[in-house]
């Protein structure tokens, strides 16, 4: 008989609020993303100096993933095979624009290496993997809108083929002043069934 998989936890970040499994974890009156995410990271004891060097997309993905993976209380002495499947609409456009600005004036041409390294969306997966020592399968998809079916198929495939013990999935999007993260962890244990309808339900609950 095929194994069944579940969503063991999910984290949402939007509109200056962070929730874990539907319960409010942190909220701030600060509307601007950068001071909000900084205060959130400090409040949640992220304790990771490299966090402040990341671009906006990576900060968003990293914090949501960090909350989920800390909540999972993984044994730090054991290597964990947690695959990562993320998606968004804007790719790395926010950082691409910043970089473009730095190279648009031929008389003031000083491209920033620390900005350039974030001009790919999947760099945020690297940041998560470095912090949590994950040497696992990963991919980043670009869609017009949240695609629960595609995320479900990929997570199921990784788990059934035993390419991973758990899969960290979701949507992490940053463009201009708009941002949203919806990440969830899929594994054998859990209460919420892992299927497209449940994924859509959790995502839509957060949208309303």
């Amino acid at each position, binding site marked *: 008989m095929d194994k069944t998989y579940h969503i063991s936890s999910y984290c949402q970040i939007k509109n200056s609020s962070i929730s874990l499994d539907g319960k409010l974890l942190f909220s701030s009156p600060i509307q601007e993303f950068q001071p909000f995410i*900084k205060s959130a990271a400090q409040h949640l004891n992220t304790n990771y*100096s490299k966090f*402040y*060097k990341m671009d906006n997309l990576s900060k968003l993905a990293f914090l949501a993933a960090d909350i989920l993976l800390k909540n999972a209380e993984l044994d730090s002495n054991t290597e964990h095979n947690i695959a990562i499947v993320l998606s968004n609409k804007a790719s790395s456009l926010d950082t691409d624009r910043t970089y473009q600005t730095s190279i648009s004036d031929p008389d003031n041409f*000083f*491209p*920033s*290496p*620390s900005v350039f*390294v974030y001009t790919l969306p999947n760099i945020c997966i690297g940041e998560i993997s470095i912090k949590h020592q994950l040497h696992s399968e990963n991919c980043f998809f670009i869609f017009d809108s949240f695609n629960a079916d595609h995320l479900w198929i990929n997570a199921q495939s990784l788990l059934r083929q035993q390419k991973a013990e758990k899969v960290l999935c979701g949507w992490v999007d940053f463009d201009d002043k708009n941002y949203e993260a919806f990440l969830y962890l899929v594994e054998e244990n859990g209460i919420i069934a892992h299927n497209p309808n449940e994924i859509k339900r959790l995502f839509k609950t957060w949208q309303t």
Partner: protein
Amino acid sequence: MADLRQELKEKIIEQLNLEEFTVADIADDDALFGDGLGLDSIDALELIVMMDKDYGIQLTDPKEGKEIFKSIAVLADYITDNRAK
């Protein structure tokens, strides 16, 4: 020289996003890389850009950079001797 050392500390903290440091935390002889401020290879590239942009110094030899970025004191001495801006 003291002013330049202060200026470099402020620039490094701001441009390399060293949120956990203040100017007072950085001694003139502290190692910038390794066990000191813990800067990495991307930070080194950012420092090379800063040298060009703010002081008109173009570093082309990686070995030279390794010595120049040893500490704030060494960096300030090098800038004083070679700056074009």
